[in-house]
């Protein structure tokens, strides 16, 4: 910051407007979350009779949480967490392995069809996946994956173009002199990839893994379309089905479910903010 200058009344007013707008926007973000937290500790009767933004009578009333974690009927939410974690783990591992290999070959070798491939990936960014469910469903059915968790693993790892573009962009910045000197010392291409390139891609891998995990955990559309059977439910689908049966479940219980679902991402976000910001900036702008 440059040297502190005298605050004239005009400047002071500008500062007040700037801070004021930030505070109002922060309230708009936090107030709904506050009501959700407050609601999750209210009894069903209390929830109906008090204002949404009023605090609960008893902050230690964990009945709603108990009902979500250990329901009388139906699958517990832990099952959905397990499904989501499994899908996330498989998809991210496959994406990193094959995405980095693809980026390596496309960037380091010249071969017939290379330009066509690069062009295809660039063009596919423009095809929104929300427009192809009718045919994607047919393909998944043909592969025997329709309505299963494996459909999601395939789509999250295989149909993701943005991550591949991030890998290509990173590998472009790794000097080919490293490859050349390793070649002279007798290293094979496989060794160059696994021993040299892959470790140097660590920042790109971290970025892709974190962005992808956030996306998979939060996504509603793909599981809604391709894996909506209760036993295959991801966290999103279980919460969605939960909110659809409002006549038998108290809103207060739904609020507890919402808090349980968003808690892991909030904790992760506070620790990994830096990576998320960096990933969004590099993934969306430089392409």
């Amino acid at each position, binding site marked *: 910051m440059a040297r502190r200058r005298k605050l004239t009344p005009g400047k002071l007013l500008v500062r007040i407007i700037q801070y004021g*707008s930030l505070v109002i926007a922060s309230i708009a973000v936090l107030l*709904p979350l506050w009501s959700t937290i407050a609601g999750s500790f209210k009894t069903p009767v209390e929830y109906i009779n008090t204002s949404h933004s009023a605090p609960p009578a008893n902050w230690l009333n964990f009945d709603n949480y108990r009902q979500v974690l250990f329901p009388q009927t139906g699958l517990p939410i832990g099952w959905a967490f397990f499904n989501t974690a499994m899908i996330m783990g498989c998809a991210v591992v496959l994406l990193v392995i094959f995405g980095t290999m693809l980026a390596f070959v496309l960037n380091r070798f010249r071969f017939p069809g290379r330009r066509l491939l690069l062009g*295809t990936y660039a063009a596919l960014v*423009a095809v*929104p996946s929300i427009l192809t469910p009718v045919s*994607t469903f*047919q393909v998944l059915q043909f592969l025997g994956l329709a309505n299963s968790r494996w459909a999601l693993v395939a789509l999250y790892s295989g149909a993701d173009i943005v991550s591949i573009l991030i890998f290509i962009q990173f590998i472009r910045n790794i000097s080919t002199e490293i490859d050349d000197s390793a070649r002279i010392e007798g290293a094979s291409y496989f060794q160059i990839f696994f021993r040299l390139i892959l470790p140097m891609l660590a920042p790109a891998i971290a970025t892709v893994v974190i962005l992808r995990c956030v996306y998979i955990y939060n996504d509603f559309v793909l599981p809604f379309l391709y894996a909506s059977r209760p036993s295959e439910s991801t966290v999103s689908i279980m919460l969605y089905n939960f909110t659809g049966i409002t006549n038998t479940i108290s809103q207060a219980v739904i609020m507890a479910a919402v808090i349980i679902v968003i808690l892991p991402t909030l904790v992760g976000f506070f620790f990994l903010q830096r990576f998320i910001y960096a990933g969004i*900036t590099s993934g969306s702008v430089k*392409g």
Partner: protein
Amino acid sequence: MSPEQQRMTVIVAFLFVPMVSLILLNIYPVLQLIYISFTDFNGINWMRARFVGLRNFSDLLTRDSELMLPIVNSLYYFAGSCVQIVLATWFAVILNMKLPGSRLFRTILFIPFVLNSVAAAVVFRQVLQLDGTLNDFVQLIFGHGVKVPWLDARQSYSNFSLAAASVWRYLGFNLVVTFGALQAIPQDQYDAARIEGANDWQSFWRITFPSIRNVLFLQLALSVVGSLEVFEVPQLITYGQGKTSTFAIQMIQTGFQFRRAGEAAAMAVFMLLLVLALYLVTQAIARRGNAPVGGGGLGA
């Protein structure tokens, strides 16, 4: 192995799985979508599917009432996106002044973007419900008993509520993108301008805006496409009922619930052509302005 053989082995081994997935999950679905759009396929039985030429497309364009609603609705979301970009730029510029507390504000404003989609919808729905937080404020100002049915899907204005929900959720994304662009501007440009006697307003229009114009344009282009593809927010908050239906919601209903896959595919192809045309236009404009346009698709 000779070096040449080794080279070929690596290329084939490393490309095999990505190529299979590219063809099966990306290219083939688009081609099959085009094929289905020329048939009366019901989504289940290929044996009964007949080739119907352009009938699905002519039906789509003549039954205008079905097509008009989603097109008008996407305008609400586009308006929302414009507000979102302006607000995000405003906040990004303030945060870039490095005032005390700016990190905290950035974290707070970004929170909705990392929330689970369904959870975010539930959270925002309880704000807009008849007995929700927003109506608590309305009653405070206009007296007890005054309640606005913000989410009444029979009313067109419910789309404003849904667009607002969308702004609430995705503002942080634009904020981070614009903020990233602002940080790339060298500080000495501002120092020089200050010595010349420029005020904040002048430095914004002379230095800041020209430097982030391309990034803002990219965001605008993405939001045009994004507002045509809206699915999640209305599906989760009003279940896309009544006047809140969008193109993607109608297409998915037609294909999966009503089992008219041919018509749904025609809708998708129509939308795909529109999106591609917009994409090419933005590419052309961006090339003239020398901005690489690509990536994206993370938000919207």
